[in-house]
């Protein structure tokens, strides 16, 4: 696994990634790879290090080591703003809607990081709720609307690699359906998605592959075709 960085189709390649939160060694040598246009999930129990992996890719952790290649560029020592400018978009688990900005301002905040971003009216067609509430303060929205806003916000920028952290957590089925539509659309447009998801039924229908994470390491990888035959194995990993 040394030549991933140079490969054309490799969009994200992580090797031997270590990261610390304070004194706790959260990531203990994570290695994974996502090809261009793929939708890949990281599944695993709470505290396995899934969110930390996304934060590390985004450059949001001070103490990290190893190798992270985004489109063949080593970014392990780069600050978050540089990584974002490579076309990487991050939708955090807590959604990160700004209370001091209204919905439109939240949408317009992230600068363009590449060509081909989704125009605002198309975003409003995808998430009609946001159009109705575009003058509302960001944090006045319902949880589902906040999640739509968090995704809509990065669709505008022309990013090509999306890091989505638990986009369906705590949402009603109707809203989950809308989020799924958005992710489907992103995949159709050829975007690459790395998805952290607890809801395996949701992840299963979207993803090409699933990485299983345990105690700060990737311990298994299951392809879409094997999901049905490996159901027992997956259940054991997730502790369902």
């Amino acid at each position: 696994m040394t030549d991933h960085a140079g490969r054309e189709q490799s969009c994200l390649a992580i090797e031997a990634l270590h990261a610390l939160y304070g004194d706790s060694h959260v990531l203990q040598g994570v290695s994974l790879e996502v090809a261009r246009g793929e939708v890949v999930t990281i599944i695993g129990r709470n505290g396995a290090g899934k969110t930390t992996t996304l934060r590390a890719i985004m450059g949001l952790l001070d103490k990290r080591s190893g190798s992270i290649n985004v489109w063949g560029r080593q970014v392990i020592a780069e600050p978050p703003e540089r990584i974002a400018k490579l076309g990487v978009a991050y939708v955090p688990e807590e959604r990160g809607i700004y209370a001091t900005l209204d919905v439109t301002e939240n949408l317009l905040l992230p600068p363009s990081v590449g060509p081909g971003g989704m125009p605002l009216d198309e975003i409003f067609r995808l998430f009609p709720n946001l159009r109705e509430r575009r003058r509302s303060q960001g944090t006045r929205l319902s949880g589902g609307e906040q999640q739509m806003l968090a995704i809509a916000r990065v669709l505008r920028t022309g990013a090509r690699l999306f890091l989505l952290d638990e986009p369906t957590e705590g949402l009603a089925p109707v809203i989950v359906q809308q989020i799924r539509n958005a992710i489907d659309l992103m995949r159709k447009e050829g975007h690459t998605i790395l998805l952290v998801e607890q809801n395996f039924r949701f992840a299963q229908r979207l993803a090409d592959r699933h990485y299983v994470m345990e105690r700060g390491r990737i311990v298994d990888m299951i392809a879409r075709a094997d999901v049905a035959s490996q159901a027992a194995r997956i259940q054991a990993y997730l502790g369902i």
Partner: protein
Amino acid sequence: MSLQILSGQLLVGLINGSFYALLSLGFAVIFGLLGIINVAQGTFYMLGAFGSWMLLNYAGIGYWPALILSPVIAGAVGMALEKTLIARVYKLDHIYGLLLTYGVMMFIQGMFVYWFATAGRPYPVPFDLRGGFDLGFLFLPKYRAWVVLASLIFCFGTWFAIEKTSLGRTLRAATENPQLTRAFGINVPALLTFGFGAGVALAGFAGVLAAPIYSVSPLMGGELVITVFAVVVVGGMGSILGAIVTGLVLGVIEGFTKVFYPPGANMVIFVIMFIVLLIKPAGLFGRER
């Protein structure tokens, strides 16, 4: 009580309030964005005033160019300080920023006392703004009218820039969640440097406005900063609108106190601060954290 005395004190209050507003506005911008309690704000006010004095006496550059040049120079000094010193204490408790900027204040003020001694130096009122308007009940010097007007324009211009423009949107986002804002590709560290420079430049601008009214002296900012600190606490730490409104209103209240109870004029702002802290600790315009 004559109308003349009242309106005279209203004017004095508005002038003082204009300076309180400009200085506490810069203070609020810096605290809101960087979480730094910039005690040196008064020093940058002094730098602004001294900048215009030096430009006039050493380079023959008059008031109007100095009104732009001097705040820009003060802002540049501020940005250099932010890059070299202040950026190092963001992750620490507020008290470290306060102590650091206190040290900066002592250093700069000490240098100016060493070079210029403490005596005030006069700065002429610009030619275009000499004379005044006789309003019947009050003689309004043109220069003082200009100070109130300029400070109002700058205060509300700053408020507009922060609340209504895309730069302001980015600044507010960087204030609320700097890490996530960086993850969107926004260079927050550079934004913080700019914000500190802008806050300092506001103080420098106030200093240039003040030069023809108060004499230019190395200690002119040290006394003011204590009052400004009280204004900021009353308005609410980091609140832009709070700084502007409170600055002007407290200036006027202080002016009227001089009429009704002169011995109380120097402490009325602090009494108000005391009461506000008891009733609404986050300040009149501040949000509870």
